[in-house]
């Protein structure tokens, strides 16, 4: 009898401690912020957002460096950054390491951003431009200022892509406070940054947008590409609300800014 009692007391205490620890660790992982709701009760992500980091220069940690065009001096130098990759390591397969290096060495000619090509996912998120989320029940539209890139995230029953595309095919779902977006059918033509980090057409990205305060979201992207990486890896960063009065995306049709580079050599020789 006594033994049974003490056993059950011990068991009870153990359960309580385990529950407490679980609650504490849960708290440490995700601050229990509850976002304001849309009219249909979902976390309200509507707004204009922007990353504030140097991931577009290099996903990994990097010191400051001189800019790519000497004549521009310090005005366009590379800003330093801690990096956004979990563990700061991108697990390239041995065969892919050389390509990353050669990409980086010639980025000013090879980076699709230089030609104003559509940025793909996840790069669209951390380009140094704002983007806007327009949230409805059936679809969530994200319009990026850069190149007027756009995605429709289907919130209904998942659908299959009709074909590969620059911005991929996005199916979304809610997991509590988090918008989870599964992105497939991405073309191999986009890069992750100006440091030559790349992928193949086997790229699969799972994005997680989680409100962490009224004016910040946490953005996570798990990147999987068995042709290029030995395992899935993850980037994460806060996104900040553009809180200016009347904040708006403006036109940034950058095709025009790439034309001299692309077509300049085909100009008529100035004989007249």
């Amino acid at each position, binding site marked *: 009898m006594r033994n049974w009692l003490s056993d059950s007391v011990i068991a009870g205490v153990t359960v309580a401690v385990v529950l407490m620890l679980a609650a504490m660790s849960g708290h440490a992982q995700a601050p229990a912020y509850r976002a304001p709701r849309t009219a249909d009760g979902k976390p309200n992500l509507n707004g204009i957002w922007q990353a504030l980091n140097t991931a577009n220069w290099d996903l990994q940690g990097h010191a400051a460096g001189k800019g790519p065009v000497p004549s521009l001096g310090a005005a366009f130098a590379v800003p330093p950054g801690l990096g956004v990759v979990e563990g700061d390591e991108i697990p390239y397969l041995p065969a892919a390491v050389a390509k990353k290096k050669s990409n980086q060495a010639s980025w000013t000619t090879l980076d699709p951003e230089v030609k104003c090509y*559509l940025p793909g996912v996840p790069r669209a998120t951390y380009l140094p431009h704002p983007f806007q989320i327009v*949230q*409805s029940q059936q679809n969530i539209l994200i319009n990026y200022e850069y190149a007027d890139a756009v995605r429709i995230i289907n919130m209904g029953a998942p659908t299959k892509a009709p074909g590969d595309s620059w911005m991929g095919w996005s199916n979304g779902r809610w997991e509590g406070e988090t918008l989870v977006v599964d992105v497939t059918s991405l073309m191999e033509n986009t890069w992750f940054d100006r440091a030559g980090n790349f992928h193949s057409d086997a790229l699969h990205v799972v994005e997680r947008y989680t409100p962490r305060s009224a004016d910040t979201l946490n953005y996570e992207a798990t990147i999987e590409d068995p042709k290029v990486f030995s395992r899935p890896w993850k980037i994460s960063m806060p996104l900040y609300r553009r809180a200016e009065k*009347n904040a708006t995306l*403006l036109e940034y049709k950058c*095709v025009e800014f790439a034309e001299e580079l692309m077509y300049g050599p*085909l100009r008529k020789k100035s004989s007249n």
Partner: protein
Amino acid sequence: MSRRLLASTLALAAVPLVALLAQAPAAGQTPSSATKATTGEKAWTPPRTVDGKPDLQGIWSNNTLTPFERPKSLGAKEFYTDQELADLTKRVREGSQGEEVEGAELGAANPQAVRYDLELYGFDRGKVRYTSKRTSLVVGPEGVVPPMLPEARARNAARAAELKGHEFDSHEQRSLSERCILLNQVRIPMTPGANEGNLLQIVQGSGYVSLLHETDHNTRVIPTDGRPHVPQSIRQLQGDSVGHWEGNTFVVDTTNFTNRTAYRGSSDKLHLVERFTRTADDTLIYQFTVEDPTTWAKPWTAEVSWTKNKGPVYEWACHEGNTMIATILRGARVEEEAAQKKGK
């Protein structure tokens, strides 16, 4: 002005819009609006978004046979009768290739290279249709764009003269459309293009209406919070759009255009008012009024009846696949070189 616009919108909504299609046996998809319009007098109640705004969401196509301007022979006749429209539709559908049918803009239905779903993009001549009884998209007794003011004609002629002989000098002389900067089909106001890619997807969020044009992923996210236009110093190819709701109609006001995006010869003084009204589950009336005192003596209005479409909206990456500009310029350089050699 706006009162007249509203009145004509309402008038049009009351007209049994697509009734003739119900009569045409060849019509693959008979819009439910046609049935409603002919059978019931009950007013159609537009659905609402969760925010209580009229729900315009979905994928829409502005493909139609209705010509932009009214054929001269029709005079002041603004609407066809059901019988006339049925006959015209029949003629167009059965017409032999290349036949011109007065009062029809064949557009994408003209024979051309095929991309994918014929029906979806209006390539299939057997399925093309008029989406309203209007004889022209331009409304009113004239049914044509008012004559251009002399100063506007002079302005446009000077620009053309400047370009003459230099059309192939560099990319800068080529059109914005060819350069994939702003394709003709997505320019606002949005008019049916004689090409594929007439799809527009509307997504509404709290305080915003977004319009995604399939053509070159051109997107406008339009605020409805009553904010003013951006400062006049900021000029954009697609201007600056702000919106508001007037009953069931979404009204968009756009200014701040550049002088490089002339719409039918307009200048950067262009002021555009677009009105979106859903009149049936599968019908959306897009009406726009164009005002530019430096180009036309008076504002003019056109109206396009859009039809719900099953989609999907594809990604249209124009610039990324643009080999045309380089090919055109290279061709011009080769020709010049050949001419030079010949001259020596």
